[in-house]
């Protein structure tokens, strides 16, 4: 299924569109499509992230946009011009590769100056541009070094400076932070995001790291099996996953199978495996019958309080494992006839449970989301 058209109609405005994929399909071997029916619009100035597991077709999509692979079918429009037959050097797109692809036989300054010579910028003007670009990534002092003499983070910045120095309207990044350690990665995420905002660049960013995607993006396209599963801003993606794949890929989620009984004013009534009925949000799901599931995030489950409230689901389970983790407690609960439910209880609510003890839990109806399996 394809959610892109339906979920963000606002960005389909052609005036704003810098990049449009129109029914793009790609097959390397002529048998299997690794990108199937891709429709996607990237607006000017937007930070769009393609997020998905390895092998889901993100790099292929990026390579088609960069001009290194040709779409088997369909069109790619850049500035409303079809570009699928244009060679990469004519597209004026900045590209940052996962391994940086710095030129080892050139100094940092020569690396950054490389794109300028093809745009007729030489001599003093080029030096000034290089100085500026290196300044932007705080590397002014290292222009004479060779890439091999730099740390991973510094190499990453050089690659960034090189992709930005010729002021491309579009910058593509393929897992650019994959090789860095966690701390550095988090700092670079913020720096890249700040550069993108301050320079007003349109960015298409590829990652398999959901927290990276959530931190940096205006919109996220979740890829799986060559298709976009959902295209939405980070909050929507997190709170309103469109299907079970998105629900389990972004953050932690309990996926519980159920049967749809009825729809009542925008809410769904479902019966769990043990007969418990719950209410759930998720009216956009069209199917009916048994083949459904609801997803509940662990942090949305809490211990039941006094009294019954209409906006909460309440259910009973048996505690299996209890871990105290400082700021919160993790409960592993057997409920709904043997399904395991993970709950994340804030520390102030934490209590001791013996394994096998009965626990009463509740969660907001709007936070239980009905999904097709």
């Amino acid at each position, binding site marked *: 299924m394809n959610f892109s058209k339906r979920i963000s109609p606002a960005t389909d405005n052609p005036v704003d569109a810098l990049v449009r994929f129109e029914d793009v399909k790609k097959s390397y071997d002529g048998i299997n499509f690794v990108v199937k029916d891709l429709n996607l619009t990237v607006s000017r100035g937007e930070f769009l992230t393609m997020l998905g597991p390895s092998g889901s077709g993100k790099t292929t999509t990026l390579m088609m946009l960069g001009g290194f692979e040709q779409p088997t079918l369909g069109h790619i429009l850049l500035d409303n011009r079809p570009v699928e037959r244009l060679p990469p*050097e004519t597209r004026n797109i900045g590209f940052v*590769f996962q391994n940086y692809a710095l030129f*080892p036989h050139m100094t940092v300054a020569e690396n950054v100056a490389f794109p300028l010579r093809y745009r007729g910028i030489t001599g003093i003007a080029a030096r000034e541009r290089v100085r500026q670009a290196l300044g932007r990534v705080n590397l002014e002092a290292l222009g004479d070094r060779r890439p091999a003499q730099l740390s991973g983070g510094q190499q990453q910045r050089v690659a960034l400076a090189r992709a930005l120095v010729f002021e491309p309207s579009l910058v593509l990044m393929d897992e650019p932070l994959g090789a860095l350690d966690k701390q550095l990665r988090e700092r670079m995420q913020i720096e890249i995001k700040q550069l993108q905002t301050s320079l007003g660049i349109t960015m298409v960013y590829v990652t398999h790291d959901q927290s990276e995607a959530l931190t940096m993006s205006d919109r996220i396209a979740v890829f799986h099996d060559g298709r976009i599963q959902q295209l939405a801003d980070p909050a929507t993606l997190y709170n309103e996953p469109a299907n079970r794949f998105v629900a389990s890929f972004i953050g932690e989620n309990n996926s519980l199978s159920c049967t749809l009984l009825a729809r009542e004013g925008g809410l769904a009534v479902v019966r769990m495996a043990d007969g418990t009925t719950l209410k759930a949000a998720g009216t956009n799901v069209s199917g009916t019958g048994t083949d459904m599931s609801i997803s509940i995030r662990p942090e949305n489950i809490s211990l039941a309080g006094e009294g019954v409230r209409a906006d909460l689901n309440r259910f009973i389970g048996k505690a299996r494992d209890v871990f105290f983790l400082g700021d919160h407690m993790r409960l592993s609960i057997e409920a709904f006839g043997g399904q395991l439910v993970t709950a994340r209880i804030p520390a102030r609510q934490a209590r001791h449970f013996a394994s096998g003890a009965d626990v009463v839990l509740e969660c907001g109806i709007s936070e239980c989301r009905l999904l097709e399996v």
Partner: protein
Amino acid sequence: MAVADMDRINVFMAVRRAEKPARRAALSLALPLIVFLVVAFVAPILYLLVTAVGNPETRQVLPRTLGALETWDGVSVPDEPVYAALAADLKVAKDNSTAALLGKRLNYEISGMRSRVLAAARMVERLDTGPYKQKFLELNKDWGSPESWAIIKRNGTSLTPYYLLTALDLQQAPNGSVERVQGDQAIFLDVLARTLFVAGLVTLFTLILGYPVAYVLTIAPKAIAGIMMLMVLLPLWTSLLVRTTAWVVLLQSDGVINDVLMALHLTSDRLQLIFTRAGTVIAMTHIQLPFTILPIYSVMRSIPATQLRAARSLGAPPSSAFWRIYAPQTLPGVVAGCLMTFILSLGYYITPALVGGPRDQMVSNFISVYINRDLNWGLAAALGVVLLVVTLAIYLLFLRLVGADKIKLG
């Protein structure tokens, strides 16, 4: 402070002690190879160096004569005691059958000396008493030539520059000054230049043919690359002699290549390919191709595909991306491959011998001639030394020009 220093030293010693077994084990693993290298590589080279300057013959055969010559003024005809000593030495030499050895050695520097020495040895056998000078001069008036005596006296030293000078087309005049050999005696510089030229040409051709092949090998799909690699390696698994003989068959006037050229009407006459330099270079190029290709291929394979893509994305057209980004990064492989082929080509022997003509013989062919036919080990060794020095010089020159880190042999 002092205590801290002591601690540090103790720790250092402890570390060394702890690592000792590992060091020993490493050394003992390498020991067989070290021994083998000393016996099979270092020792022969040292022997070669010694042979190229060794000069034992005159000292062994004419000890008394050399003693008598010590007081000789070097310009006049020597006096009777010198001839008496020579007669005594030659008698011993005749008994020990070493006169021929001396004659051969002196003949290198004084033509006709071999027969003069042998005749004199036969003569002194019949003489019981002196005076000898008159007898020698009657036998051959050249026995009175001060130049001959000067050369004999000069060869009383245990080391001689003679072979090395000869290998460089130089000679020592009787008065000791070094001068250039004239005329058709001067062949070795010519041979050396020819060797360098052929090796350079072969290197160039293997590079021109091999570089694109190495590139295709790196970008071809696995299955095709595997078959191509097999074709590159196949020649390496066949003996050098077999491949050279195959080229002899191919290059002959009524051989396959000429048949094809004639059948296609590309030439009206059969080309002379066998026993020419062109034939030699063709055969050597074929044999050396893998040596040039493999180092280039190994370097090319280590260059990520994203290098070219990055260059393209930054605005470089394909050819510019290749020459400015890809080619410079292949330089370590190019240098290593060319160095390998050039140095191996300098030592070629079988191929020029079988495929080349008389004017295409390289230094190694002359070395073999001096060892096998002329039994002139000194000159053979000297040619070997010259080849060794030239090879080392070229290697060092390469190192200077491109830097040791730019040569990737593995």
